[in-house]
C-alpha cells in the first residue's frame, strides 16, 4: 500500500507540475486590511503572492463618498504595488486593486481601512 501511495504520488507529482496555476492574491497590505490607523497614511502599499504585469495592474483608493484620494498611477515593481495618498481626514477608505499576474491570470479585490479610530 505504501509503495502504491509512493508511485501514485510520483506520477501525480510529474503531472501536477504542468498544471500548476497561480493568481496574484493580496499577501499583505499597509495599512493592514480592515485596520484602524491613528494617523493618516501617506501611501497604500500592497504585496501580492505573484509578480505583477505593471501595464495591467492598478490600485485606487476612495473615501466613503466614492471620491478618489490616491495620487494617480501606482508604482509597480515585482510583486508589490504602491500608490501615494492625498491628506486623509478621519473616515473609512476603500482600496480596490486589479492585478494581472505574470502568468496572465486576472484577480481583483478590495478592502477598507479606517483613519482616526472613528
Amino acid at each position, binding site marked *: 500500500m505504501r509503495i502504491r501511495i509512493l508511485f*501514485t*504520488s*510520483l*506520477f*501525480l*507529482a*510529474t*503531472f*501536477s*507540475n*504542468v*498544471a*500548476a*496555476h*497561480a*493568481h*496574484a*492574491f*493580496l499577501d499583505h497590505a499597509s495599512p493592514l*486590511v*480592515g485596520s484602524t490607523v491613528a494617523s493618516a497614511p501617506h501611501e497604500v502599499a500592497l504585496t501580492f*503572492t*505573484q*509578480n505583477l*504585469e505593471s*501595464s*495591467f495592474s492598478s490600485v485606487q483608493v476612495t473615501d466613503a463618498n466614492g471620491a478618489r484620494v490616491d495620487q494617480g498611477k501606482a508604482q509597480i515593481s*515585482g*510583486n508589490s504595488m504602491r500608490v501615494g495618498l492625498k491628506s486623509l481626514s478621519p473616515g*473609512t477608505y*476603500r482600496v480596490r486593486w486589479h492585478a*494581472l*499576474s*505574470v*502568468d*496572465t*491570470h*486576472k*484577480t*481583483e*479585490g*478590495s*478592502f*477598507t481601512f*479606517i483613519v482616526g479610530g472613528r
Partner: protein
Amino acid sequence: MGDPLAYVRAAHFAATIVAAGVVIFEVTVAAPAFAAAGGVLEAEVRRLRRRWAWLVWASLAVAAVSGAIWLALLAVGIYDAPIADVWRDGGVWTVASETRFGQISLVRLAAAALLAASLPMLKRAANPRPWGAGAVVLTIAVLIGPAWTGHAGATPGAAGEFPLAADALHLLAAGAWLGGLPPLAMLLATAWRQKEPRWATVTAIAVQRFSLLGVISVSTLLASGIANSWYEVGTLNNLFATSYGQLVLLKIGLFAAMVGLASINRFYLTPRLASGDAVLRLYHSSLAETGLGFAAIVVVGFLGAMAPASHAHHHAAIPEGAAFVHIHSNAGMADVTIVPGRVGTARATIRLWNGDFAPLAAERLTFTLTPPGGQPISWPAAQAQDGSWQVDVVPLSQAGNWKAAIDAGLDAKRRLTLDAPIVIEPEQ
C-alpha cells in the same frame, strides 16, 4: 469542455513538442545511426530528412498560428472586450509588447523563424552536423520559453528559481521523448519497407539511442514533477473529489500507459529487432505511444485552461452592490458574496476553491457573521445546484467592518476554516 483556449494551448504545445522532438531526434539519434551505416543509404536518408524538415515546418506553422490565437484570446480576457475591439484598438500588440507572456512569445517566434529558415540545410546535407548545434539551441528556446510565463516564472524572488528550472526541464524532456516518437516511427517505417541489411544497423543504433533518450527524459519528467509538487503540495489534496483532479488522474493513466508501452519496446521488442516483424511491431507501438502522448497534451490544455475559466466565472459572479471578500489560505479559498451588501436583509453565497481555483467539494458548511463589536451569528448553508453554498436570509443590523467566517467539512476528517473582514455599507 468547450473552452477554445484549451484546444489552442493543446495544439500549441503539441506542435512545439513535435518540432523540437524532430530536431533533437535528428541530432542525437538519427545522425549517429546514419553515420554508422555509411553512405550507401544516402537516397533514402535524404528522403527521410526531407520529410522530417516538412514535419518541422508544418509544426512550426501550427505553433505560430496557435500562439497568435492564444495571445489574442489572452488580450480578449485581459481587456474583457470583444476580439474585434481589442484588435482595432491595438490591444493585442500592447499585450504582446508589454507583458512577459507577449515578449517571450515574440522571442520564441523569432527563434522559430530562424529554425524554419535553417531547415533547407537539413534537407540538403548528407551530414547535418554543423546545422545541428544551432538548430538545437533554437529549438530549446522555442520549447522551454513557456516556463517563464507559468506559475514558477511568476513566483517572486528566489523561491521561483528552482521550480522555474524544473518547469523548463519538464518541457525539454517532454519534447525529447514525445516529440521524438513521430520521427522514430517514420524511420522504422522506412526500415521496414527497405528490408536492407544496413537499415537493420540503422534501426538497432537508432532504437538503442532513443531508448537512452527516453530513460533520461522519463527520469527528468519524474524528477522535475516531484520537485515542483514539493513546492506545490496543495495540489495533491483534491485528486479524486474535483474535475480538475480527475483530469490529472486521466493524464497519469495516459502517462502510465506510455511508460508501459515504452517498457515493452525496450525489454521485449528491442532484443528481437533482428528477427521477424519486430520492426513493424515497434513502429505500431511508437504510433500508439504518440497517440497516448497527444491525448495527454490535450488534457494539459484543459488543465491549464480550467483556472482562468473558473476565474472568469468567479469574476462575473460579483453583482453590483454586493459585499465581497476572497479569502485565501494554503488549504483552500472561499469567495463570500453578500447581496445586497448593505444594512437590511441579504443573501450570502459562498464558493469554495482549491489552490488551483478548481471547485472544492465539501459535505457541509457553516457560515458565521460577526457584527462590529457584537456577537457572532451562525447559519448552516445549503448547497445549490451549481455547487455554491447559500444562506438565504442574513439580517445585517449595522454598517461597518463585519467578520465573515466559514467552517466547511470537506470529508469525515478534513475541515476548512477561513475568516476575513467584510464591509457592510449603510442603508440606502
